[in-house]
């Protein structure tokens, strides 16, 4: 992969919203961004870190597995006892080391195994993501999802969706550590 240099960053900077978009295009159509072009003849495979709380989301991921519901191998799961264990540092660390997307999964608010953990997660992540957005880092690279132990199918579909979203965004350059890129 090429070095992420200043000029690279600019070269790959997404163009401003296209002005020639049809007026009646549905509002939620994602604006196509560069980055998903083929590299070395291979499609871009993002690296995605998925933090899962032990009680709901990890179990949901297990259920996705035992139900044989597929999602891309790009997703790698890290188990934590509760989503409130996820330090913003871990998320930034993942980006630093080359992750292209980070998704935080917890129990549905109100269903936390520890009663209140995910309520704190929700506040922390809202503020963290807002700050990353303020720094100009694509907010689509981060996500919080509430996935219960019963929602194996949803876990798989959320992962598929998120991977697709990151694929469209392309490689994470803004928050990558140059030392980690070959």
């Amino acid at each position, binding site marked *: 992969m090429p070095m992420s240099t200043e000029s690279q960053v600019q070269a790959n900077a997404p163009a401003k919203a296209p002005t020639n978009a049809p*007026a*009646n*295009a*549905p509002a939620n159509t994602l604006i196509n961004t560069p980055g998903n072009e083929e590299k070395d003849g291979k499609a871009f495979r993002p690296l995605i870190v998925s933090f899962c709380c032990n009680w709901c989301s990890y179990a949901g991921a297990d259920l996705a597995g035992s139900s044989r519901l597929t999602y891309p191998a790009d997703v790698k799961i890290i188990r934590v006892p509760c989503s409130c264990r996820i330090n913003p540092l871990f998320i930034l660390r993942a980006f630093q080391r080359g992750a292209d997307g980070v998704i935080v999964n917890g129990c549905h608010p109100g269903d936390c195994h520890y009663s209140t953990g995910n309520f704190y997660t929700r506040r922390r992540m809202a503020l963290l993501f807002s700050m990353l957005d303020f720094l100009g880092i694509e907010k689509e690279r981060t996500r919080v999802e509430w996935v219960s132990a019963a929602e194996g199918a949803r876990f798989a579909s959320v992962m598929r969706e998120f991977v697709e979203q990151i694929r469209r965004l392309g490689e994470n350059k803004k928050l990558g550590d140059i030392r980690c890129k070959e």
Partner: protein
Amino acid sequence: MSFHYYPGCTLKTKAKDLDECARKSAEALGVPLIEWEEWQCCGTVYPQAQDEIATRLAAIRALDEARRNGSDLLTICSACHHVMKRINRDMQTNEDIRTKANNYLALDTPYTGQTRVVHYLEMLRDTVGFDELRKRVLYPLTGRRIGAYYGCMLLRPSKEMQFDDPENPSIMEDFLEAIGAEPVRYPYRNECCGGYVALEEAALVGELCGKVLDSARQKGAEALITACPLCRYNLRKNGSKQDMPVYYFSELLAEALGVNRTNTEPVRLEK
């Protein structure tokens, strides 16, 4: 609060009574109904297939016009109401239909189901209020045992129509009570009259209408009301033999409010 009034084809021809009584009564109740002159037929049947776009456009035009005027769209005919409500819902929830329809219509602002579709009866219940209506009644239909015939279009599918309990509706009974009549609840009031197969399956329609009328009579009804010209046609055609008059609900409303076509002594419906 005024309504964007959508009468529909039949109300301007064979069902003039339904239209005229409804408009006069609304006027008497102080609810302005503003009819858009350029309305076109709603299509009469809701296109159930996802890929039918053209057949939805007439309804969307009317809905969009109501949005421009910033008012709710008011219908009376059950079929119109059914078509408008469901197509409006498609525009709210079905992205494919919404996109395609808007591409066809090329409106300044895309229509995404912003208009609220209201049935005349809902207007009576929610805007006027049945309690208020009761106070405005000059000639209550006291002692008259009347059954409401809902048919299919107003009620089903209930998830989309959100009109009333599809199996045990009550809005027309509450209406009847408000105008002083004694509502008669009977189990076949939400079963189909035979609809548009009337022309070729007269026997089937006869059977279905017969059941409705019989069911109403068993419970003691002496007349029926309906909101649908087609239902009324089918029931009358088969019910004339059965001595069961079938009125539009708006006829009885006009009667009770005393806004009949003749401005003289109100004609009391014969007992």
